[in-house]
């Protein structure tokens, strides 16, 4: 639902993700500050084939809630989509959490490029451990927050992780969310060529390596059950994964890592998988 000739960088995963929005009926996009704001078009042009309501940074889910409430009362069928980056999920976290707790009947999509990219690659709470950003020049030392697990803890109606590396899987999840009711949350992994420092042609390959090394888990949670997604199922088992170094060393933001640090990160990933497995029913 995005037209060619938009402002996105070469190889931009957000643009690719927006192409998949045709899987959802009657969409209305709510977009806060971030890359998506610019990709959606600069006045007087809109690059989107669907309506867009641009909003201040921390307000996305609340504006989406207001739109949906009004559409409901006015008898208008609409899938209101709060479409934000990991930056907006940081600054708008209280808004996001309350929206999930209220069970707002909206779809929330977080396009996660693991940094505040639009302002020049500053570290966010979603930035991968030890990654180099302008505010973590020696590698990020903070913990990495897992938004999908947090949404499961809110008992959201539908939670999914996806990646631009597997667009059929992403489209399937958009399609499913578009048909459901209640609070739906989709967390999309978006490798960013300029921010992560890799050639623009490698976006999809790096996204797939993230899944294959276990760095990005693919699953869906609904009706109280967590199920791993088909394309990522084999990597649930540590034995089937590719070495984490294959994923990390393909990106400039990790070029400073020693082998011990890569090992540390492999353990960190496995620790996170232990928590995910506790939720799963597979």
């Amino acid at each position, binding site marked *: 639902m995005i037209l060619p000739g938009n402002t996105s960088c070469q190889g931009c995963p957000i643009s690719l993700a927006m192409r998949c929005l045709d899987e959802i009926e*009657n*969409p*209305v996009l*709510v977009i806060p500050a971030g890359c998506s*704001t*610019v990709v*959606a*078009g*600069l*006045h*007087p042009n*809109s690059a*989107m*084939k*669907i*309506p*867009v*309501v*641009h*909003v*201040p940074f*921390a*307000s996305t*889910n*609340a*504006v*989406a*809630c*207001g*739109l*949906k*409430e*009004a*559409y*409901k*009362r*006015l008898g*208008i*069928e*609409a*899938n209101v989509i709060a479409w934000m980056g990991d930056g907006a999920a940081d600054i708008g976290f*209280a*808004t996001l*959490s*309350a929206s999930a707790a*209220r069970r707002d009947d909206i779809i929330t999509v977080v396009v996660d490029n693991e940094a505040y990219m639009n302002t020049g690659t500053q570290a966010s709470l979603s930035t991968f451990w030890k990654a180099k950003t302008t505010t973590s020049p020696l590698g990020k030392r903070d913990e990495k927050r897992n938004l999908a697990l947090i949404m499961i803890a809110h008992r959201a109606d539908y939670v999914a992780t996806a990646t631009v590396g597997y667009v059929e899987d992403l489209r399937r999840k958009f399609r499913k969310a578009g048909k459901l009711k209640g609070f739906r949350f989709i967390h999309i992994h978006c490798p960013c060529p300029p921010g992560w420092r890799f050639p623009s042609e490698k976006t999809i390959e790096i996204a797939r390596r993230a899944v294959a090394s276990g760095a990005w888990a693919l699953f869906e949670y609904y009706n109280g059950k967590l199920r791993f997604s088909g394309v990522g199922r084999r990597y649930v088992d540590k034995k089937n994964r590719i070495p984490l170094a294959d994923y990390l060393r393909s990106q400039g933001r990790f070029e400073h890592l020693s082998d011990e640090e890569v090992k540390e990160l492999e353990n960190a990933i496995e620790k996170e998988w232990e928590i995910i497995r506790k939720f799963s029913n597979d």
Partner: protein
Amino acid sequence: MWNLQGNVQTKGYRDGTRIRALLTSNEAIAEAVRIAKPEVIAAYPITPQSPIVEKIAEMIARGELNASFVRVESEHSAMAVIHGAATAGARVFTATSSHGLAYMYEMCWWIAGSRLPAVMAVATRSIGAPWNIHGDHTDIVLLRDAGWIIGMAETAQEAFDMTLQAFFVSEEVNIPFAVGIDAFTMSHTAEVVEIWNPKIPERRQAYRVLPTDRFAVNAVTMGKARMKARYDLAVDLENSAKIIEKSDAEFGNHGGLVEKYRLEDADYAVVMMGGWCGDAKDAIDMLRGEGYKIGLLRLRFLRPFPRKAVKELGGEVLVVDKGNSDIRGVLGIEVSSCGIEAKNVVAGIGGVDVGVEDFCKIFKNFVEGRIGLEWYL
């Protein structure tokens, strides 16, 4: 108090029937909201505005008001929710005070710049630090530059009438409208209010967003267009004065942008706004009794600022403020900008009681030429 309101409801009155009830300004505003029939209401509690939204929640629960009430987690989200609902075409309402207004400040600019009609009640309370829950005007003056219409009521009746007028005017000019009442002295003080049922037209607005549309609202905009948007808002805010004055008769006949109290032959004029003007008027009467030709220009609106009425003031002018910017009061600055050399007294901050005797003292000092710029501590 509630039984009385219950009776008011079951009487089921039509257009033109007036019923008198004993209501606080909070309750009066809630009644006006019920009559205006907004469709989406979102608010976060804060002393002393909480009773407004509590009453509204009760009205909805009892089926007296058919609206969606969204329980938000902050004032920023409250204004965001009503911005979203207004974008889709719904009539909306929220209420706040003090720190809540400060927290939603960014969204206040956004909804005004988006040119969406909305109504907000502000129970004007001091903004810290340090903490203070009582009444002054330091919070509502925050809205001055955002592009809102800002009204200040003096009585519960005026709060009721002005809230109804707010829905009408904001939808006429596509500018959000804030109705200010003094914290506690008005919000929690009961007065006799005539409840009546005016005809408020169907909601209309300059634009709305539907799923079938193919445009974006408020995208990144370069200089000239952005400036044009701000200019349009400023011009329409100026022109809203005409709509406010024209509709004054329909909504309680309170005087338009200002109320002129004993100003016709006055050599001394006091300029004030808000609930404490009631006591000021008593002091005016007492000084008149002593032979001083003194009158009060009560500003009913802070925006659009009543420049014409202020410029027409002859003689000596004193501005008494319940909110300061620096050493000067805010109204003092606004009045001076009209080319008037006014005296300025700042009083009543943090809810410090300023009664009739205090006003008499201040006005006495004024007419006897003993006031420049000072704080009544």
